[in-house]
C-alpha cells in the first residue's frame, strides 16, 4: 500500500534520515521503533509532506498508484494518508467537537456515522464535546488526536508515539484501540518507544538507527531477537 | 599568551586605530562630509546597540527607543546650554534616560510580545508629546537651537567631537560585548529564550528585565547625548515613532543579537541613505524594497546572530575561552 524507497531528510547539515526503504501492506500494522533521534518522526513528517525530503514515496489506494512527490500535505490527507502527530497537537483554542469536525475538513458528506464511530471508540470524548480541548488531560487529548484523524476516513494511519506520557491504563487502552481501528480495515504505521507493546500488536517491524534501517522482519521474531532485546527492550 | 597580554594587545590596537582615524579627521584627510557620516553612523550604532540589548538579547520588542534617545539629547542640550561641560551633562542625560527605562520596565513586566511593543510605543509617544509641550525648556515644536558644541570655546574643531563619539562608540560596544559574555548576559539571554525556565533556574527575571530596560535606555540616552552637541540643533520630529522603527530596522537587518551585525547595519544604512538621496522620491521606493528583499533572502539579517570572524579573533584574544556560537 505504501512503498518508500531511498527516503532522505536533512535539516541543514544534519542528515536525520539517510536513505531508507520499506513498505507497508494493506491491512497491516507495521511498527517503526528506534532510539531517540533515530529519525522516526522525521520519516513520518516526510511521508505526510510536512518537511521536504528526497527519494520516492508511493501510495496505492484501491489499485491506483500515486507518486507523492510534490503533493501538498492536505492533498495527501485527501488520498487517505493521515498522521496523528507526536505530542497530540490538538487545536487547543477549539472545542472537542470542532476538533473532530476539522478532522473531516475535506469531506462534504454526512459525518454522523463517523462521529458515532469515534464516540464508540472513545466514549470520554462524547462527555467532553463542548470543552475547550486545551483543558483536556493528556490522555484525553491523545484520544482526541486519534479520533480527529479517524474523522477523515484514513486508509493508512501514521501514529507517532501515541502512548507517550500516558498512564499505564491508558497505554493499554490506546493499543487496544489501535487494533480495533486496524480491524476495521485501516492500515497502520506505528512509531513507538514502547517497543514491548508495539511489537506485540504489530505484524512487522523496522528498527531505525541514526537514520538507517538496522533490522526488519516479523514483529514476533524481532521481539525475540537478542539485539532488539538488549537495545530496546531493556534486556 | 597570557590573558592580560592579550587584553593589552587588543586594547592598544583599538586605541591606535582610533588615534589614526582621529588624525586623519583632524587634518582633513578624511573630509568633513565623510567624517560627519562616520560620526552619525557611530551614534546610530550606539542607539541600535542599545536596542539590541533589550530586543535582540532580552527578547523584549521595544518600539519606543527613540523616546529614550530624545531624553538623552534634550537633557544634554538643556544642561550644556546652562554652561555645563559636555562630560558632566552626560551624567544626568544617561541618568534620566535610565530612569525612564526603569519606569517603562515596571508596567512592562506583566506584558508580553506585541502588548509590550505597543506599551513602549506609547511611552515613546508620551515622551515626544512632552518634548513638544515643554515649550520653553525644550524649544517645543520649533526645536532646540544653539546647543554648545563639543569644544567649549565654540571652535568647531571636529576631531574633538569625533574623539568623543568614537570613544563612546567603543565603550558601548565593549560594555555590551563583555556584559553579554558573562553570567549576567546569559541570564539576559535565558529570559529571551524561556522566562519560565529561567525562573526555575534561579534567575530573577524581574531584576534582569528592569536592569536590561534601564541599561538599554541609558545607552540610548548616551547616543542621544552625543547628538546634542554634534547636531547643535534638535527637532522633536527626530524622536518620533518612525525613528524608533528605523532603529528596529537597523537591528533586524544587522541580525538580531549580533553586535557586529548591528554596527555594520548602522553604518551601512547611514551611508546608504545618504547615497540614495539623489533618487528623490524613488529613494523611498528602493529603500523598502531592499528591506523586503533582505528579509526574504537573508531573513537572519547580515550576521544572523553570529559575530564577524575577525571579531571572534578579537574575542579570542580578549578572553581566554571561546564563546563562539554555533548555528
Amino acid at each position, binding site marked *: 500500500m505504501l512503498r518508500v524507497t531511498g527516503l532522505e531528510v536533512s535539516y541543514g547539515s544534519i542528515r536525520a534520515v539517510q536513505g531508507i526503504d520499506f513498505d507497508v501492506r494493506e491491512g497491516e500494522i507495521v511498527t517503526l521503533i528506534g532510539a531517540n533521534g533515530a529519525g522516526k518522526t522525521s520519516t513520518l513528517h516526510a511521508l505526510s509532506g510536512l518537511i521536504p525530503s528526497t527519494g520516492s514515496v508511493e501510495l496505492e489506494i484501491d489499485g491506483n498508484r500515486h507518486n507523492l512527490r510534490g503533493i501538498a500535505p492536505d492533498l495527501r490527507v485527501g488520498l487517505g494518508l493521515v498522521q496523528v502527530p507526536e505530542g497530540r497537537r490538538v487545536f487547543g483554542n477549539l472545542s472537542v467537537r470542532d476538533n473532530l469536525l476539522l478532522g473531516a475538513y475535506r469531506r462534504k458528506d454526512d459525518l454522523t456515522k463517523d462521529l458515532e464511530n469515534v464516540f464508540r471508540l472513545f466514549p470520554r470524548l462524547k462527555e467532553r464535546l463542548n470543552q475547550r480541548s486545551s483543558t483536556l488531560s493528556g490522555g484525553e487529548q491523545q484520544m482526541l488526536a486519534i479520533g480527529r484523524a479517524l474523522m477523515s476516513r484514513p486508509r493508512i494511519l501514521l501514529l507517532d508515539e501515541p502512548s507517550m506520557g500516558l498512564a499505564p491504563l491508558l497505554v493499554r487502552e490506546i493499543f487496544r484501540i489501535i487494533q480495533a481501528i486496524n480491524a476495521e480495515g485501516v492500515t497502520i504505521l506505528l512509531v513507538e518507544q514502547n517497543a514491548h507493546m508495539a511489537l506485540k500488536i504489530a505484524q512487522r517491524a523496522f528498527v531505525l538507527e541514526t537514520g538507517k534501517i538496522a533490522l526488519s522482519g516479523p514483529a514476533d521474531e524481532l521481539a525475540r531477537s537478542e539485539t532488539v532485546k538488549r537495545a530496546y527492550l531493556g534486556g | 599568551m597570557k590573558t592580560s597580554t592579550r587584553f593589552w594587545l587588543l586594547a592598544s590596537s583599538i586605541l591606535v586605530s582610533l588615534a589614526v582615524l582621529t588624525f586623519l579627521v583632524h587634518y582633513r584627510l578624511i573630509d568633513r*562630509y565623510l567624517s*560627519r557620516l562616520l560620526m*552619525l553612523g557611530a551614534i546610530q550604532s550606539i542607539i541600535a546597540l542599545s536596542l539590541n540589548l533589550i530586543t535582540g538579547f532580552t527578547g523584549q520588542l521595544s518600539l519606543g527607543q527613540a523616546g529614550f534617545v530624545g531624553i538623552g539629547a534634550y537633557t544634554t542640550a538643556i544642561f550644556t546650554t546652562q554652561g555645563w561641560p559636555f562630560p558632566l551633562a552626560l551624567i544626568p542625560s544617561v541618568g534620566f534616560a535610565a530612569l525612564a527605562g526603569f519606569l517603562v520596565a515596571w508596567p512592562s513586566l506583566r506584558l508580553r510580545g506585541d502588548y509590550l511593543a505597543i506599551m513602549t510605543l506609547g511611552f515613546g509617544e508620551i515622551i515626544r508629546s512632552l518634548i513638544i509641550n515643554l515649550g520653553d525648556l525644550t524649544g517645543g515644536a520649533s526645536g532646540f*537651537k*544653539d546647543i554648545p558644541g563639543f569644544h567649549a570655546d565654540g571652535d568647531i574643531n571636529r576631531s574633538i567631537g569625533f574623539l568623543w563619539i568614537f570613544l563612546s562608540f567603543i565603550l558601548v560596544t565593549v560594555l555590551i560585548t563583555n556584559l553579554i559574555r558573562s553570567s549576567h548576559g546569559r541570564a539576559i539571554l535565558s529570559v529571551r529564550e524561556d522566562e519560565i525556565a529561567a525562573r526555575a533556574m534561579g534567575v530573577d527575571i524581574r531584576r534582569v528585565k528592569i536592569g536590561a530596560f534601564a541599561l538599554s535606555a541609558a545607552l540610548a540616552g548616551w547616543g542621544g547625548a552625543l547628538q546634542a552637541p554634534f547636531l547643535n*540643533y534638535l527637532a522633536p*520630529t*527626530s524622536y518620533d515613532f518612525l525613528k524608533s522603527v528605523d532603529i528596529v530596522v537597523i537591528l533586524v537587518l544587522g541580525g538580531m543579537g549580533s553586535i557586529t551585525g548591528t554596527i555594520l547595519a548602522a553604518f551601512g544604512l547611514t551611508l546608504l541613505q545618504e547615497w540614495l538621496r*539623489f533618487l528623490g522620491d524613488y529613494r*523611498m521606493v528602493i529603500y523598502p524594497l531592499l528591506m523586503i528583499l533582505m528579509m526574504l533572502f537573508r531573513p537572519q539579517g547580515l550576521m544572523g546572530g553570529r559575530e564577524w570572524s575577525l571579531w571572534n579573533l578579537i574575542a579570542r584574544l580578549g578572553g581566554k575561552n571561546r564563546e563562539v556560537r554555533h548555528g
Partner: protein
Amino acid sequence: ADSYGSGPIRIGAILPISGRIAEYGKQTRDAAILAVEEINAAGGILGRQVELIVEDDEADPVKTANAFTKLVERDKISALMGALTSNCSLAITNLAMSEKIPMVSPTSTNDKVTLAGEYVFRACYIDSFQGQVVANYAVDTLKARRAAILYDLANDYSKGLFENFKKVFEARGGTVVAESYNTGDKDFNAQITSIRGFNPDVIFLPDYYSAVALIAEQIRNQGIRVPLLGADGWDEVAGKADTWMMPAFYSNHYSPESQDPDVVKFIAAYKARFGVEPNALAALGYDATRIILQAIKAAGSAQPTEIQKALVNVSGKFVTGNISFDANRNPIKSAVMVEIVQGTSGLTTRYAGTVNP
C-alpha cells in the same frame, strides 16, 4: 588658489524633494532652476555660468545638515538657497555662520531663523509680521472682537502664527480662544465643538492648505458660518475646497492676478517651462535665487564672504514685492490679503488689499 575663482559659480539648494512635503520642495526647486536658466541664457554673471546643485533634505533636520556639509565640503558652493522649513533651516544656520556661507531661505518664516547671525537671510516675511497683518485685518476690516484659533502644535510655522496673531489681537482688545491639534490629525470635531461653545466672530487657521481644507469643512459641518482667516500656507486652498469655505481671507506673498509686469512675466515663464501655475512657494524660491544672483553680481565675486556683504545691501523689485533687508536680514516687504470667492470654474481668489510693514 581658491576654489571660487574659476569655473561655473556653484549655488546650492537644500529642499525637500521627497517625503511628506515633497510637493513644496519640488515647486521651489523648479523656480530656482528657472531663475538660474534665465541668467545663464543671458550670459551668466561675471562672465561665468551658474550651476545649481540641489540636495534633498526629506524635511529632516539631520539630513539637511548632512547635505549642507556635502555642499560646502565637496561642491564648494558660494551660497545656499534653502532650507525650506524652519526646522531644517534652524539645523544649519550655525553651520552657515561657522563656515561663512551665506544662505537665503525662501520660505522659513520662523522669527528665530535669522537670529543666528549675519550669514542667514530669507526672502519671506516672518511669522510675527504675518500674524500681525491677519490680526489687524480681522479687527479693522472684519470688525471681529472674538477670535478662535485652531493650530498645529507640532508645527512651528503654525505655532508662530498663532502666538503672534493672539498677541496682536488681544493687544487690540479682542478675546481669543485657542485649540490645537497634531500634524496629520484628521478629526477636529472635538476642538470645533469647544470653539462652537465660544461663539467666535472669526476663526484663524494658521496651517497649510491641506489641513485647512479638512478643518474648514468640519467647521462648516458643525454649522459655524463665521469668516475663516489664514496665512500664506493657504496658498492653493481654493483649488481644494468648495463654496462652503467662504467667507475666507488670507495673507499671501503675492497675488497671481497682479498686473505687475514682473509677476506676469514670471508666471508666463514658469508655466511655459513646467506646465503648471506657480504658487507662492515657487515665487519665493524664484526670488530667493534671484536675490543671491543679484548679490553675486553686486559683489563682483563668487567669494561667499563677499556675497554676504553684498546681500546685506540687496534692494529691488522682485516677484513678491519690493525687497530690502532689515538689520536682522529679514526682508522689508508688503503682504497682500486675498479673499476666496466663487469663480467661473470653482473657487478662486480676489485681491483684498495690501498691508505694508
